[in-house]
């Protein structure tokens, strides 16, 4: 018989040696964030004012809610490109309902329900089709963009009633309500991922779908549930954004999908799934907000801003890349 195993060779990480030598690992994101804070504070001391910092949190709050949901999807090795368009639809549903019925509760219900329904439909299509989530949600995104335009007749639906007072203008202990909503969403996703069977199944499906199936996990059902859950967050974000803008616009969600995915990836959750953390997503969201804010405060011209943002995102992702 063959001789017994000698040593078990460990898989080696594939980070660039320079980075490894710095021992940064999972702290790279934090360090990038700190660097930006320092540079901006030097350039414009008002950056560090409570007002500005709260502003930044306020500005990224809806993005944070959407990115929290998207984190779950990326962990399953899936994603949802339609969240931006879905956000517009949810926001419009909210605005239209509030304006026509005068009822805040109905409006919120309409927005959240639209988000969930859209998510569930996406989930069903993805669970029962061989095509990748990328392609499927690309299709639903286009469909939803059209629906948003139809719903709004192309124009903004102005007025969101009390939603504006709460989310647009309201705060508690100086912190605007949308920021609380974002933090709550992040914590909720954290709890789901860490402490629930649903969250555990998400990791299993993303890590090895076949193994998950062979372990008796009802993969199809779980996927639908997860995409619907993501839809819940999108719906909430839609309601809140409608409140902030005091209107529902057919284009209000444009660009959210890419920024949300960017935030999740910057935060360390890989596209191939199986692992991930929503705290990293929070970091990614903050990075995006910080960069944008700091560029404005430092007076970086609008033409440069897109390029700079792209550079920073690329750098953060490269530095984060794990084995």
């Amino acid at each position, binding site marked *: 018989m063959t001789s017994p195993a000698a040593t078990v060779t460990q898989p080696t990480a594939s980070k660039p040696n320079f980075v490894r030598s710095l021992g940064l690992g999972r702290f790279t994101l934090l360090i990038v964030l700190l660097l930006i804070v320092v540079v901006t504070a030097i350039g*414009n001391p*008002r950056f560090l*004012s409570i*007002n*500005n910092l709260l*502003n930044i949190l*306020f*500005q990224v709050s809806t993005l944070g809610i959407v990115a929290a949901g998207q984190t779950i999807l990326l962990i399953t090795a899936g994603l949802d490109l339609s969240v931006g368009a879905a956000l517009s639809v949810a926001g419009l549903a909210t605005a239209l309902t509030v304006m026509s019925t005068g009822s805040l509760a109905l409006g919120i219900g309409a927005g959240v329900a639209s988000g969930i329904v859209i998510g569930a439909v996406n989930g069903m299509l993805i669970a029962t089709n061989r095509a990748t989530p990328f392609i499927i949600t690309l299709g639903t995104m286009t469909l939803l963009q059209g629906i948003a*335009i139809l719903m709004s*007749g*192309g*124009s*903004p639906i*102005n007025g969101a009633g009390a939603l504006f007072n709460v989310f*647009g*203008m309201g705060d508690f202990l100086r912190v605007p309500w949308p920021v609380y909503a974002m933090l709550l969403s992040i914590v909720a996703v954290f709890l789901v991922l860490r402490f629930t069977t649903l969250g555990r199944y998400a990791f299993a499906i993303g890590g090895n779908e076949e193994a998950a199936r062979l372990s008796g996990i009802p993969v199809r059902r779980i996927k639908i549930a997860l995409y619907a859950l993501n839809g819940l967050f999108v719906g909430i974000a839609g309601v809140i*954004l409608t409140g*902030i*803008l*005091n*209107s529902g*616009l*057919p*284009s*209000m969600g444009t660009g959210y999908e890419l920024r949300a995915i960017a935030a999740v990836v910057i935060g360390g959750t890989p596209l191939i799934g199986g692992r991930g953390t929503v705290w990293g997503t929070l970091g990614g969201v903050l990075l995006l907000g910080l960069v*944008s*804010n700091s560029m*404005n*405060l430092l*007076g970086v011209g*609008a*033409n440069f801003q897109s390029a700079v943002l792209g550079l920073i995102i690329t750098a953060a992702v490269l530095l984060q890349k794990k084995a």
Partner: protein
Amino acid sequence: MNITRGALALLALGTALVAPNLAQAAEKTIAFMRGGPDPYYQYGMNAAQAAADKLGVKLITYTANNDPTQELANVQDAITKGVDGILIYAVSLSSEQAAIAQAKRAGVPIFFQYGYDPSILADSAGVMEINLYTFGEPVGEAIGKLVPDGEYATITGKLGRGDAEAFAQSFKNGMAKSGSKATDVADVAADWDRQKALDAASQIIAGHPDIKAIYAANDDMAVGVSIAIDRAGKTGQILLGGDNGAPYGTDLIAKGQMTMTNGNPPSIASVYSLRLLLGVIDGSVKPGQFYEAPTQLITKDNLADAVAWEAKPADIDKWLSDPLPQPGPGPTAPAN
């Protein structure tokens, strides 16, 4: 005897078949093309549609979704359909030039709204547009009188097309013209987007807490800016100037959150443009001329007279019976 009856029957049948087509041939078909989903174009289209219905003209509508290639495809499609004329809000200068080349070859008159360039004037049925280079000036002047010194900022639209830059500059010219010594501390581009304008304004206010006035290059962005001002608790302390006079913009004026806007209602402009295009088609109007689009300064005092973006039938009737706009020289960029 039989032959004559047969021949008469055939003639009757033939006429019955052809007559509707002849009648239809008398009805003109116009293609109305808008650049994208922007509500501005929608209002214009709605007014044009209502006017066309009253005139007995058939309107086919297209949208280019902000894509120049799509726009060209739409133009080709319309030409193939055999429309009598094209009324278009173009996406970009290059697509205008391509469109006009196509239309010229097919002999279809094409009228441009908003997108003037000297190179396209001669071959077009006409161009109607506001004067980009002076559009923000009256607003600047009005605000300049109220803000003799201090700080102000401008928030403009998507850079690259030329209009965003021109609007902001015109506002600044107006401020200077009024004799104000106020300084411009920030110029941000917010892509005509309400949310981006909100974020930009928040940052400007945070960075310059003593700022006295902000100019938003369209009223959609002005709404966003007004929210930022409101959140900072500075409504009334920071004056807001807008441009284009959309319904939500006039709302702001009514609520006292915006001082003035320079209205550029797409509704009346589209109706006039339609009439001019029809005039070129039937030969009563000379092609290749520039017309300045009707604009209107709106403040709290004249809100009631603001031209509606959402045209009512009575408005359409009035615009159809107004005297036709007179041609004028195209706007030229000021020497810098």
